[in-house]
């Protein structure tokens, strides 16, 4: 078999970060090629380079596609050559029908007038190919996620696809839908469609992939041929996580005190689909001075768990109890959760954590205005004093606390969010991806702040997709998968291999 695609020494640099470092990827004609790696390893970036999202010239290295040097200028350009990418978040218009979605931007029309007969006939053909029996006029939002995924594939097929890229196609699918999708992939392979699949689910990778390439920290680690000898999940996991844990985490005295927070039998359903249970019977404990981690892949339900505990900010039909220092507390609204001693530092600081157009000091006092006011009247001086205190303590780099937070770098913005919650005086802080999108230096500072908090006897519950971070910071780690805790490891027991194997063998 000849190579359909060869990506040679691809290097992609973002300001301050090397996202891809001389990556090589060879995909043979007619195979299914799996791309695996941790969150943030660079898989999606690589696919964006391939599909022209990052156009030729913005990266170094060469892409050879179908025997030619390819220099795609945008997605439309790569699609014209038969390279089609299906993103994790589906790109369908929910209010339109299947047929309308399939030919969106590519309508079967003459002089701007749509030929519905032709459209529907083609749609039926395509739907048959992907094994869907719904009528072309069915609205997409009436279909389940699994079927929507198939519609996406049908849409790709309508464009004469030669290389189909699927970015975590089964992440949101149920078991049976996943199986159907994998079967379809194998069938498309029979028809000669070359495919690249990005997936975290190693059993699925093993089932469909002919070749597996592991990417880690922006570089290719290994490429394994499944046809030569069967690939074991162990081998993949080893390559995925096998990096040395450098001294990136400040030392901390580990001593856990009394039980601070206890969550019992926590169950949560999806806010829109009341029959879909997202969190299953979670029990967790955080002790005073303890840093507890929650590990898991994206979509495991970690953020949903945290937000549902914090004032029922996510989900519905929530059941279970929360105890603080042995007494059951009411956390049914955010103000009550704050009163009970909780704080939640969101993973999405720009849209959920900050008012970007307001100054630093306004953001810092937002969750505890009572602390800088008397009888509902703000004390400007006290407010500025508080903000200045946190600026010093957390080393927020800014000319002054009157600066709008939109002007700050990611790390400094995160420190503002942390300041806000520290000023609210919580007992337990839930930190959701506290170091996402910030540079190494600021990360180290944030770790220092976390250690300081635990030294003060606060409890910290830390959600992170970066396993080294959890291993470096936590006293105990819960492993979460598909909405349930599938394991609990102490700092001594935990390793990336153990966590990953708990997730993938669940």
């Amino acid at each position, binding site marked *: 078999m000849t190579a359909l695609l060869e990506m040679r020494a691809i290097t992609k640099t973002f*300001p*301050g970060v090397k996202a891809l470092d001389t990556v090589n990827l060879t995909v043979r004609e007619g195979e299914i090629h799996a791309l695996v790696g941790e969150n943030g390893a660079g898989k999606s970036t690589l696919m964006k380079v391939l599909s022209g999202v990052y156009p030729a010239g913005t990266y170094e290295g060469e892409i050879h596609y179908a025997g030619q040097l390819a220099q795609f200028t945008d997605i439309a350009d790569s699609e014209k050559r038969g390279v089609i990418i299906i993103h994790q978040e589906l790109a369908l218009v929910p209010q339109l029908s299947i047929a309308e979605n399939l030919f969106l931007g590519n309508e079967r029309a003459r002089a701007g007038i749509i030929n519905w007969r032709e459209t529907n006939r083609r749609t039926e053909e395509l739907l048959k190919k992907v094994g869907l029996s719904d009528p072309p006029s069915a609205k997409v939002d009436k279909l389940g996620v699994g079927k929507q995924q198939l519609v996406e594939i049908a849409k790709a097929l309508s464009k004469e696809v030669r290389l189909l890229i699927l970015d975590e196609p089964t992440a949101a699918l149920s078991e049976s839908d996943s199986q159907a999708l994998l079967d379809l992939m194998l069938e498309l392979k029979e028809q000669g469609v070359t495919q690249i699949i990005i997936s975290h689910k190693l059993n699925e990778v093993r089932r469909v992939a002919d070749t597996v390439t592991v990417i880690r920290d922006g570089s290719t680690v290994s490429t394994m041929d499944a046809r030569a000898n069967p690939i074991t999940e162990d081998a993949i996991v080893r390559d995925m996580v096998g990096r040395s844990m450098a001294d990136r985490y400040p030392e901390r005295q580990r001593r856990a005190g009394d039980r601070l927070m206890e969550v019992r039998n926590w169950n949560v359903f999806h806010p829109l689909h009341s029959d879909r249970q997202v969190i299953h019977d979670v029990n967790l404990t955080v002790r005073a001075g303890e840093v507890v981690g929650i590990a898991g892949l994206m979509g495991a339900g970690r953020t949903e768990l945290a937000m549902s505990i*914090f*004032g029922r*900010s996510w989900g519905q039909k929530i059941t279970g109890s929360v105890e603080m220092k042995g007494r059951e507390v009411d956390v049914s*609204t*955010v*103000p009550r*959760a*704050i009163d009970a001693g909780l704080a*939640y530092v*969101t993973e999405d600081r720009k*849209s*959920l*954590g*900050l*008012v*970007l*157009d*307001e100054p630093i000091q*306004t953001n810092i006092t*937002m*969750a505890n*205005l*009572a602390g800088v*006011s008397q009888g*509902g*009247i*703000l004390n*400007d*001086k006290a407010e*500025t004093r508080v903000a*200045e205190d946190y600026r010093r303590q957390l080393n927020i*780099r*800014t*000319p*002054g*606390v*009157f*600066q709008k937070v939109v*002007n*700050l*770098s*990611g*790390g*400094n913005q995160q420190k503002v969010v942390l300041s*806000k919650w520290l000023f*609210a005086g919580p007992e337990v802080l839930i930190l959701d991806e506290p170091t996402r999108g*910030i*540079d190494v230096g600021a990360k180290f500072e944030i770790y220092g702040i976390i250690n300081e908090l635990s030294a003060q006897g606060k409890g910290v519950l830390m959600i992170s997709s970066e396993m080294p971070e959890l291993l470096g910071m936590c006293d105990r780690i819960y492993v979460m998968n598909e909405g349930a805790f599938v394991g609990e490891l102490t700092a001594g027991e935990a390793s990336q291999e153990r966590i990953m194997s708990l997730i993938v063998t669940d």
Partner: protein
Amino acid sequence: MALAEQRDEGMAPESRGVMDYLVHNMREYGLLVALILVMVFFQIVTDGTLLRPVNVTNLLLQNSYIVIMALGMLIVIVSGNIDLSVGSVMGFIGALAAVMIVEWGAPTLVTAVACLVAGGIIGGMQGYWIAYWKIPSFIVTLAGMLVFRGASLWLLEGQSLGPFPREFQLIANGFVPDIFPAAWGAGLAELLGVRNVNVLALATGLIAAGLILWMETKSRAQNRAYGMEQEPYSFFLARVGITCLALIFILYKLSTFRGLPNVLITMGVLTIIYAFFTARTTTGRRIYALGGNEKAAKLSGIRTERLTFLAFVNMGVLAAAAGMVFAARLNSATPKAGFALELDVIAAVFIGGASMSGGVGKIVGAVVGAFLMGVLNNGMSIMGIGIDYQQVIKGLVLLAAVIFDVYNKSRQA
């Protein structure tokens, strides 16, 4: 990210030039300058009619209900919503007042309280759907606009209703009696070479100017102490100086006519209360947070639904107050009262610098915006420009103000 940080660190607040400051604060000065330019322009083309005492008095009375409603509208818009129903609600409350007083013979005080409560209830009814059912405020208040327009027609049976007793008329047309001895006024009048001087009005102007001077100086000192971005001293002097002089000038003009209109006191007191409320209270702060980023506000423990609800209740109460002022001024309630007035109010708020997307805007801006529109209306009427051109010009002014905003923002970025 790293780049932005470096730039910020290198940019100490002192090192900014005067020009740089002007670019960043163009909006506030622009509004003040625009108001002055418009007034000077009309003063010249109307041969001094604009600033005659009687016209100044008129200008204040004519715009009082717009200003009163702009206070509430600013809060609604800062919270990220809009209220299209205020004109209709204003008309409805005027009709209610007329029915109560003229037909039922209810006392003025009882009527006033009942009208304010009714306004609050109307605001609450609309706010309920907006806050707790998340129905867009545009739709809910559009419905309210139609409903209350119809309700006033029904209440008045299509007829005008009046006149009001003298007590009620005083709300809009009364003047505060001079508490100083008449001899003082007469003496001053002779000194200044005018017919008469209302000492109270003049004293109010001087005291208000003094207060502004004192407060501005204090806050400047405080800002300096906390290293906040400093307004260049020349700007500070010009801004405060012009504001104070204008205030004294306006009140001097009033003092040579009939003194302080009651409605000016109402307007002034309400403006001060709302300016304080938005800038200095926790609830005011929370409204800005709600409009700036509702999700972040909610996750910070702010009861966003309740705040939205209350913003509309407040708007209803102010629309009711404006409705009474309007009815009292005309001395009758008419089914057409308040027609299309919501647009003037909304325009005033946007001209005053509020942002359509919420979270940005100041009370003083809204009030100045209302007067800018008022001066345009008044000046053009004196010049005898037809209502057709007036509408076109007002529309263009609104558009220009918003374009100016957007342009300014993109220049800063």
